[in-house]
């Protein structure tokens, strides 16, 4: 709780042209009881900052309200040691978006100052709780991604424990005759050198390798995980801070590909089986040992197929091309056919495609119609050929099915977490873990646990190595952050963490169920057991709790309630309705600022309150607002559903559920449920902001004033 709050009003950037700043100072000092309040023409400049520092010191301020530009701007300038800083957005929120000198504009500015002052009363600067790390990373999987992760995560004063279930390191690459793409003479991929990688790992003293081993159990939380490794009958217990999951993939089960002839004859094999044949030097027809003179490759065997794997496994085109080179190098006369949907050789792999074409391999775009025993002892394949416009039939010695990749984690537990929400990483689809895979590809739903390689998405070895490096960075970096008591992505550096007033807990389990990151465990009764180092500080638990027992030092139900209660609500005869907009601070708030950047006019009856995530929206705020006579409440958050854009996974979705529940209650109270509205606002929807507000105000006008108005 900030006890001594100072308020500094900036008159620059057009603010003084729009509003009477002296009145704002007076309100802060009088009505809101600021310890000190003043105005300055450029707070963000040297002189302004010095003034503020001096005031902080002389008054012993522990809270400061900067009534100036948007909180998104100059946050590093307005940062004072041990002082909670709140912002009243007078520039973007008022001066750039409202009619200068108008009564409504002035009222808006006054409210913004009141709200920030109110919030500050219930907020203090979080200190964070440093923890002592073990400086140890667990890497699960000793394939190329895992080896790369282990190598990069080790060093300095950090140890790595590498657990591989096979008896040797190398993972799937061990089963390869030649490594793609290294062995395809592409300079850009020379690094995929398995032997080199294994010997580097062997030479790294800080890496402890357990082969023939699996992770039996992981309990605890980042920076304090207790891991049990099962190696044969031995159990090894140790502590680690963070985890990289590089458990790899397995081939799609070809037994399901009977329609392509698999299982009925030894002369139909998978690409994995063919790789072994090549590695063993047995390029012969399995059924009778005849030297291979003709081979047909079926691409997308079980991939891009709703009956099997709907996705593309990304590497099978390249793998078949590589395998054709085995055949052509052994005997250039070998006839090679490829039946494909699309040849997918992105980037430099196009060079491989071209090179293999030159060997005379024949590419047929079409679908296999039948694979049967042929008249001459081979396999008779009939396929459509889109490019010929006619079907083709060919009898070959061998059919190779280019089967796809399935993440090991689809049906095998590799982490065995003792988390209340389950033992593994939550999945996005097809067994691949959920993450923000575009801007923040490593952000799983389990703090401190990062997926890398084909377990994350189908990828080639070169990408797997890069991915291992990336995951290693995140694993190491999160130790750094967590040990300082800081949050990891997306609120990196946040020192706050939720406090649970457990004496008031009713064991409803909403928080433990709704936490997107599995941060909360439960005791037998259902009381939440917080794990601060798993927490991402989104506030979903705070929004979920019906007893309102969850709060952060600098963000709480009370601080927002107080902001709501600070708004001056004119009586109904003034015909000045009031709307509270609770807006996601990453996207909706930014969109409103961007509307200001473009000088769009915004409705002056709206009072915007930033929230960490819409998932932190607690229904008590609706009661607070409506009982004060506020006419409507708007929730502005991210898109939800399958293509959710919420960086806390399901914040806006949870808010929507809660809002629907409140609406039912409102209906029962004969208060129109339309007074509550949620809108999806993307950061670039700034052009729609004025309309969004105006539409809502129009609806509210239809409904008439809130009957609870004074």
């Amino acid at each position, binding site marked *: 709780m900030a006890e001594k709050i100072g308020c500094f009003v900036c008159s620059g950037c057009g603010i003084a042209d729009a509003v009477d700043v002296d009145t704002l100072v007076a309100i802060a000092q009088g009505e809101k009881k600021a310890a000190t309040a003043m105005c300055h023409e450029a707070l963000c*400049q040297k002189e302004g900052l010095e003034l503020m520092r001096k005031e902080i010191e002389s008054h012993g301020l522990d809270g400061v309200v900067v009534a100036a530009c948007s909180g998104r701007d100059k946050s590093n300038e307005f940062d004072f040691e041990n002082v909670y800083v709140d912002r009243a957005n007078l520039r973007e929120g008022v001066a750039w978006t409202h009619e200068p000198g108008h009564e409504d504009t002035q009222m808006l500015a006054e409210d913004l100052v009141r709200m920030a002052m109110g919030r500050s009363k219930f907020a203090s600067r979080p200190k964070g709780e440093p923890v002592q790390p073990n400086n140890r990373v667990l890497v699960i999987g000793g394939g190329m991604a895992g080896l790369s992760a282990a190598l990069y995560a080790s060093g300095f004063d950090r140890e790595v424990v590498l657990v591989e279930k096979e008896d040797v390191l190398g993972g799937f690459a061990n089963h390869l005759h030649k490594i793609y793409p290294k062995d395809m003479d592409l300079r850009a991929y020379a690094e995929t050198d398995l032997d080199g990688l294994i010997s580097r790992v062997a030479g790294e003293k800080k890496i402890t390798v357990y082969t023939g081993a699996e992770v039996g159990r992981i309990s605890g939380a980042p920076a304090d995980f207790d891991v049990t490794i099962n190696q044969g009958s031995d159990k090894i217990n140790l502590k680690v801070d963070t985890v990289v999951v590089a458990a790899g993939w397995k081939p799609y089960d070809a037994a399901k590909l009977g329609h392509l002839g698999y299982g009925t004859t030894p002369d139909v094999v998978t690409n994995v089986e063919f790789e072994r044949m090549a590695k063993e030097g047995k390029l012969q027809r399995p059924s009778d040992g005849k030297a291979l003179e003709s081979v047909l490759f079926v691409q997308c065997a079980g991939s*891009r197929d709703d009956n099997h794997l709907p996705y593309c496994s990304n590497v099978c085109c390249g793998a078949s091309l590589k395998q054709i080179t085995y055949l052509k190098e052994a005997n250039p006369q070998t006839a090679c056919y490829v039946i494909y949907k699309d040849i997918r*050789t992105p*980037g430099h792999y196009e060079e491989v495609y071209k090179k293999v074409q030159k060997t005379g391999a024949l590419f047929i775009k079409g679908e296999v119609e039948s694979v049967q025993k042929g008249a001459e002892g081979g396999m008779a394949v009939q396929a459509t050929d889109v490019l010929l416009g006619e079907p083709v039939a060919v009898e070959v010695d061998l059919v190779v099915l280019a089967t796809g990749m399935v993440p090991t984690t689809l049906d095998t537990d590799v982490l065995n977490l003792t988390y209340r929400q389950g033992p593994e990483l939550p999945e996005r689809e097809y067994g691949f873990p959920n993450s923000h895979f575009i801007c923040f590809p490593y952000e799983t739903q389990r703090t401190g646990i990062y997926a890398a390689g084909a377990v994350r998405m189908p990828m080639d070895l070169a990408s797997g190595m890069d991915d291992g490096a990336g995951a290693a960075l995140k694993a190491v970096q999160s130790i750094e952050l967590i040990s300082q008591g800081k949050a990891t992505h997306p609120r990196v550096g946040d020192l706050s963490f939720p406090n649970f007033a457990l004496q008031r807990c009713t064991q409803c389990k909403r928080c433990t169920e709704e936490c997107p990151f599995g941060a909360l465990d439960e005791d037998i009764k259902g009381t939440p057991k917080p794990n601060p180092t798993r927490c991402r500080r989104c506030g979903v638990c705070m929004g979920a709790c019906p007893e309102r027992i969850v709060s952060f030092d600098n963000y709480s139900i009370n601080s927002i309630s107080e902001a709501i209660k600070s708004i001056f609500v004119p009586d109904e005869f003034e015909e000045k309705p009031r709307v509270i907009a609770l807006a996601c601070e990453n996207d909706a708030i*930014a969109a409103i600022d*961007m509307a200001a950047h*473009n000088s769009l006019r915004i409705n002056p009856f709206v009072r915007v309150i930033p929230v960490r995530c819409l998932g932190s929206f607690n229904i008590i705020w609706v009661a607070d607002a409506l009982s004060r006579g506020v006419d409507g409440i708007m929730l502005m958050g991210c898109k939800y559903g399958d293509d959710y854009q919420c960086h806390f996974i399901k914040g806006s979705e949870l808010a929507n559920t809660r809002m629907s529940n409140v609406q039912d209650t409102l209906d029962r109270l004969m208060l129109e449920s339309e007074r509550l509205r949620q809108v999806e606002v993307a950061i670039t929807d700034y052009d729609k902001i004025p309309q969004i507000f105006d539409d809502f105000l129009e609806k509210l006008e239809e409904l008439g004033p809130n009957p609870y108005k004074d």
Partner: protein
Amino acid sequence: MSSKHTSVLVVGGGMAGVTAAIETAELGREVFLVEKTPSLGGRVAGMKQYFPKLCPPYCGLEINYRRIKENPRISVLTSATVEKIEGKSGDFSVTVSVKPRYIQAGLCDPKKPFEGLEATVESEFDYGLGKRRVVGIPHEQAYPYLPVVSESALGNPEIRKQLENTAGVDLHQEPKTMVLKVGSIIWSTGWVPYDASRIGYLGYSRYADVVTNVEFERLAAVNGPTGGKLVRPSDDRAVKRLAFIQCAGSRDENHLAYCSSVCCMASLKQTTYIRNAVEDSEVYVFYIDIRANKYESFYRTIQEDKKVHFIKGKPGLVELDPASSDLVVVSEDMESEKTVRVPVDLVVLATGMVPATREQKVPYDGVSYDEFGFLVSDPFTAAIIPAGCVKRPVDVAASVQDATGASIKAVRNG
């Protein structure tokens, strides 16, 4: 490690560079992030949405910018270029030259002082499709959020005169040179779109309504030259029929022999721009192979749209029908073996990626490139660590992934 310096230099402030800088700084290292334009953000800042989630790039930039603001270990240098690199891993001396913004020091109001100055120049951010004011904040999501005097305006004597008379503008500012001492260097200068005018038969130089995929992003973007309205550059006619020509320069020995790997997904994504905005719009995608490797389900969804026609064939001609002012795309439709002549309003060329390092080399001896200009390096020993599209043509997700990995390489190698 016996490094003299542990700080890291990141060159290029696009998505890869921004990521590399932040990830490295959050690991506890000092970072210098050098960007040649006046704002961070790079190519992604000019895009309307990412595939496959159709989310705006500004959202991720918002998070990243906040991370930069809150991290005292990152020094951002915009309008800056690396002139010279000397030394070796652990002990580099890097000469950086920084151009002025020509804005008076201590001026905090980024808008009002320049409101009277109405002169405009061609907007590079909009690939020349629109105009921008000569002084202003580069765009809504610029970092730093500060005004800058457009460089191209300085050459115009009339505009120069106006600038001289504008309070808040200071044309006397001089470029500065500084020397940074760093332990390792991440090179993430990104890519440039392939020059579509070199593919004569596709009509890019001839017709204003043949645009590239990066230009189309600007036409569709709400902060683009048309405010996001899909109209033709030549005559403002609403776009209802749209053709995408894939591999415009990629997979082509005469242009870029490699596959640029993102253009298929980019076009599929851009298909949604018009299909979601314009009812009854028709889209034609001319392709060789659809390479939706990572996002097959996105492709499938688009395929189910009856108004989107996938035509396997590489067009050899785009011509103007003077009567209707339609552009006519001539291609084989291989599935029917017929030649189709498809009249459309706008043609989008899915032009590929050229690594920035094809033209702008790293000013340091011993850096090697492949025949296309991509950086080639040993991940365990490289002095200059490539990240993102200077290494391989990749999408944003893979670029971020690579940049994250590059950060730990920088920390280890340096």
